[in-house]
């Protein structure tokens, strides 16, 4: 299998470059992460994040042949060769395929991703009907891999002001949560020219989400909630 991988070590390299590898895959090497780890047995200077190897942690998000995805759940069969691996686009590169996620997590933090409810709970829990719980489906499953946000052109142009698809999906998760009491404040917080309304419905986010989520639909739901709220 032939791969061409983005390499950049700021301590040694003046500029990034693409390094070609040709490896023989074992029969058990089914996923792209397996191929990357096999390359690391040849060249252990290749920096890559990985953890769960089953598509739930989001660590190994990268750009695979021009499209963001998780290496651990991307089958090697069917990948056009040479497989071109780049770090997530638009994010500062720390080294090779490892990017700085600080701003991404700061945007996530800015939408206050926790339940806001000062009312004392009745009994042990804040109860929620099955119907209300179902409204969280398609929103809570986000693993914050940043595939969506780093494939969003609007985020590329305004990363410090536009919250991005992942952050907005999580904002929607709490806006529609029946147990949350800060809906009005959450909607107010997103209502300026940048935080939500840089979204142009390009829908790259929905296209590349490895968990099959639809951030663009969540963003539309937030816009609808803003339209419906009393003014």
């Amino acid at each position, binding site marked *: 299998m032939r791969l061409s991988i983005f390499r950049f070590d700021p301590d040694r390299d003046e500029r990034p470059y693409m390094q070609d590898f040709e490896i023989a895959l074992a029969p058990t090497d089914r996923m792209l992460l397996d191929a990357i780890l096999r390359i690391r047995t040849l060249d252990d200077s290749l920096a890559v994040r990985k953890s769960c190897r089953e598509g739930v942690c989001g660590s190994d998000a990268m750009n695979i042949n021009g499209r963001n995805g998780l290496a651990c759940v991307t089958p090697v069969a069917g990948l056009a060769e040479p497989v071109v691996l780049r770090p997530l686009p638009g994010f500062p590169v720390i080294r090779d395929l490892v990017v700085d996620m600080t701003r991404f997590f700061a945007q996530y933090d800015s939408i206050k991703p926790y339940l806001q409810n000062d009312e004392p709970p009745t009994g042990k829990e804040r109860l929620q009907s099955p119907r209300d719980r179902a409204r969280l489906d398609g929103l809570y499953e986000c693993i914050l891999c940043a595939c969506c946000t780093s494939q969003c052109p609007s985020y590329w142009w305004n990363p*410090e002001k536009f*919250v991005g698809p992942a952050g907005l999906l999580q904002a929607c998760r709490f806006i529609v949560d029946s147990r949350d009491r800060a809906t009005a404040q959450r909607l107010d*917080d997103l209502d*300026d*020219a940048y*935080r*939500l*309304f840089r979204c*142009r419905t390009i829908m790259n986010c929905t296209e590349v989400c490895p968990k099959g989520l639809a951030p663009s639909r969540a963003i539309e739901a937030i*816009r609808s909630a803003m339209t419906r709220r009393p003014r």
Partner: protein
Amino acid sequence: MVKRGPSGWLAWIVQRASALYMLAFLVAGLLWFLVDPPGSHPAWRARMAGAGTGIATAAFFAALLAHAWVGLRDVVLDYVRPRSLCGPVLAGLGLGLVAVAAWVLRILVMVRA
């Protein structure tokens, strides 16, 4: 990473409402001209000089200019760098649209004269 500046929702609503009105106006206008075409320039002028037609046409151009303003503003906010240029560029575009609005108004008044 906190909210600042005017409402983004209002601009979004203006863009959609103006698009709907322009679509309705163009469809209605096209149907009207297909079903009952004015035979001559004086006939067309008489049709455009009507109060209802004049108001609807003025509203069409107001919607068009509002729609254009929101779209151009989005382009400037996305692409113009350094950011200090955004204000002057938006001011220039705004003046341009105001000039177009004045021109449209003049034409509509002249048609009625």
